[in-house]
């Protein structure tokens, strides 16, 4: 086998492009490699090309250009039913005219598996998702969460090496969604299968994945493990899209190694870590996470940069306080503080001083 540098992953997208109308590219030059056993999430706003990528991998769309490799083999010309990829659909796509057990037996039947073996596998797959007693029911008689479990076990029952999930939890309520998130990751890791998961919900992406690919405008903006993605966003889209984020706009006036000085639009001067600003005079968006901002002088760390701020709104959220400030002309500057016994509750109109470490303050593209 002629292995190239890019094909050491289990699933590889090699310079893949996709266009539906011949005029615009929905997916622009996609390169991605997923290791065996990895849980990769494709995260992005709707229309960012993530679902198209999934459909190309499943075989329901063809790549306009480039190769998709599975286990080192190009699969562009292999029809979907021969790819052996399990898939969980957004609306579950459980066959309404079959019982739960018949739904699960379907992939085994089309593989011409014997009846007794089939029944054993179906039973095991149902037990795996704690639905052992539901084999005789119709999908319509199940709740959303139960349907979700059945869809999951149907995608796993024929023991595929790769499972694709297209926003599988979108239709569930919050509590159920959180439980299913846990269950899906547990199953995926227990069975050691490779999973490609598509969602527009960043919490889902952060809690479930080994790696997250953030999509926007047909490109991967950043591919990183969840903690890196959150703490070290590489551009302002990722910073804005993942979690809550405060931005201050300004111009870079000085760069030296891993620090730079930014002159904000209202004249304030800031120290920041340069990420994707290259030269003096570049416009930049400085990004600070709300929970990294401190207003209690006693807790302010050594070397922290301080700015004046006015309290606009105080919201009590139980476990945390969310306070909206006006900082350097920005009315949407938010800080989050833990509800600790010694924590001050700020009052609207109060003038305070806030501060953060220059390492938490990242100068990104504007």
């Amino acid at each position, binding site marked *: 086998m002629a292995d190239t540098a890019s094909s050491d992953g289990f699933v590889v997208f090699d310079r893949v492009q996709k266009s539906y109308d011949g005029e615009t590219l929905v997916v622009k030059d996609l390169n991605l490699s997923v290791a065996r056993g990895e849980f990769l999430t494709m995260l992005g706003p709707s229309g960012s090309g993530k679902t198209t990528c999934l459909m190309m991998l499943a075989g329901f769309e063809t790549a306009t250009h480039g190769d998709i490799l599975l286990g080192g083999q190009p699969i562009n010309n292999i029809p*979907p*039913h021969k790819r052996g990829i399990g898939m969980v659909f957004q609306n579950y796509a459980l*066959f309404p005219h079959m019982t739960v057990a018949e739904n699960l037996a379907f*992939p085994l039947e*089309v593989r011409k598996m014997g009846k007794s073996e089939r029944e054993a596998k179906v039973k095991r797959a149902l037990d795996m998702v704690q639905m052992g007693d539901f084999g005789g029911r119709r999908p319509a008689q199940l709740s959303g969460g139960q349907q979700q479990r059945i869809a999951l076990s*149907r*995608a796993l029952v024929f023991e595929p090496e790769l499972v694709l999930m297209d926003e599988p939890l979108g239709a569930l309520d919050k509590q159920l969604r959180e439980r299913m998130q846990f269950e899906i990751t547990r199953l995926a890791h227990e069975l050691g299968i490779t999973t490609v998961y598509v969602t527009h919900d960043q919490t889902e992406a952060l809690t479930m994945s080994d790696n997250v690919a953030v999509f926007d405008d047909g490109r991967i903006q950043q591919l990183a493990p969840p903690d890196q993605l959150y703490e070290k966003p590489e551009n302002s889209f990722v910073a804005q899209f993942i979690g809550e984020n405060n931005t201050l706009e300004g111009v870079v006036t000085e760069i030296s190694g891993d620090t730079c000085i930014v002159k904000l639009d209202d004249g304030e001067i800031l120290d920041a870590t340069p990420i994707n600003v290259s030269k003096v005079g570049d416009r930049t968006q400085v990004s600070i996470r709300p929970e990294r901002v401190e207003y209690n002088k006693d807790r302010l760390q050594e070397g922290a940069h301080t700015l004046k701020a006015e309290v606009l709104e105080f919201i009590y959220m139980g476990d945390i306080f969310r306070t909206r400030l006006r900082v350097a002309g920005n009315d949407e500057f938010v800080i989050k503080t833990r509800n600790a016994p010694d924590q001050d509750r700020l009052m609207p109109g109060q003038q305070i001083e806030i501060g953060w470490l220059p390492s938490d303050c990242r100068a990104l593209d504007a």
Partner: protein
Amino acid sequence: MSDMTDTGGPVLAADGTPLKRSLRKALRRQKMRALLLIAPLLIFVLVSFIMPIGDMLYRSVENKIVSQTLPRSTQALSSWDADSGELPSEAVFAAMAADLKEAAEQKIHTRVGSRLNYENPGMSSVFRTSGRKAKKFDLENGGPWKEQLIEINEDWADTDVWRTIKTYSPPVTAGYFLNAVDMRVGPDGAEMRPERERIYMNLLKRTLWMSLLITFSCIVLAYPVAWLLANLPTRKANLLMILVLLPFWTSLLVRTSAWKILLQQQGVINDVLVWIGLVDDNARLIIINNQFGTIVAMTHILLPFMILPMYSVMQTIPPSYVRAAKSLGATDWTAFWRVYFPQTIPGIGAGSILVFILAIGYYITPALVGGTKGTFISNQIAFHISTSLNWGLASALGAILLAVVLVLYWAYDKIVGIDNVKLG
């Protein structure tokens, strides 16, 4: 709050009246208003639909004309034994003479004649000739009527004539229905008519069989069209939809006449076949005025009734089902046959019921392109309504047709379940 749930009695509303009664009172106004809103339609349906159908159904058994026109004779005949082989007594003949005179004066003697003629051919002339003379009968001292009547028309000496009158003297008769299923009342009760007189059962069988064929060809032709309609991009689907509906909006007569032009022996299809050399000029195909012509034209005309229900069902099937089947390892054919097709059955069912019921009652198209071999039972009904004026028989045939439809509907409900039918 009072502990009214603990008492075990009926649940009471806040003012102490039983909750059920207050609920009924609260809903009564709503119900009245709903009833008022549908009242015009209800009355219209009642007057223009239910009542005429009821009237026609009644006509299929109604037989007052004999006992009303010949009151004395039918009275006198009640004591006569038709199986004795002897003619009725002089009293019966006298009663008949009196009835004939009265009927002839009112000029209604031919009507009862033609009514009885349906049952026993020849009766019409018996009454016509006798009626002509009857006006001059001297009832007081004419007699003996037996000889007089037989002299006017020798058929009066035939016991069969009297038997027919006696059999059809009650105000209600099964005669029309027996006639409609090719039976008649013979000396030993109901019996089948001779082979060559049997028309209607064969016609009914032919109607059902051809309707089945038409329904089947509609299913085969409509399925791919409906699938395209449901799966093409909106703009192309809309264009196709217009193509489906365009013939729907064209007059039925125009479409049927168009088929006449296409199918006749000197018509377009034969001309083309001869031109490309597939058919010899002397052996042009006969594809009109037979069953083939009727099936082709009616399939075309009824096709939209199959496409539309199928389309509305297929539209609700998301493409993810077939995709799911393929991702699970099913080939295109397996995904279609095991996953897509079963979900379209309600549409096929709805379309089939619609087409089949429309087909077995169809009239214009079989009349125009069916010739003699391709006509339906409705063409016979129309013949009896407008030409032979035997409304009783027409009603009986109609009632049988209605019963067949209801039985089929019931069977369909048992097998497929009417709840599974979706029209849109």
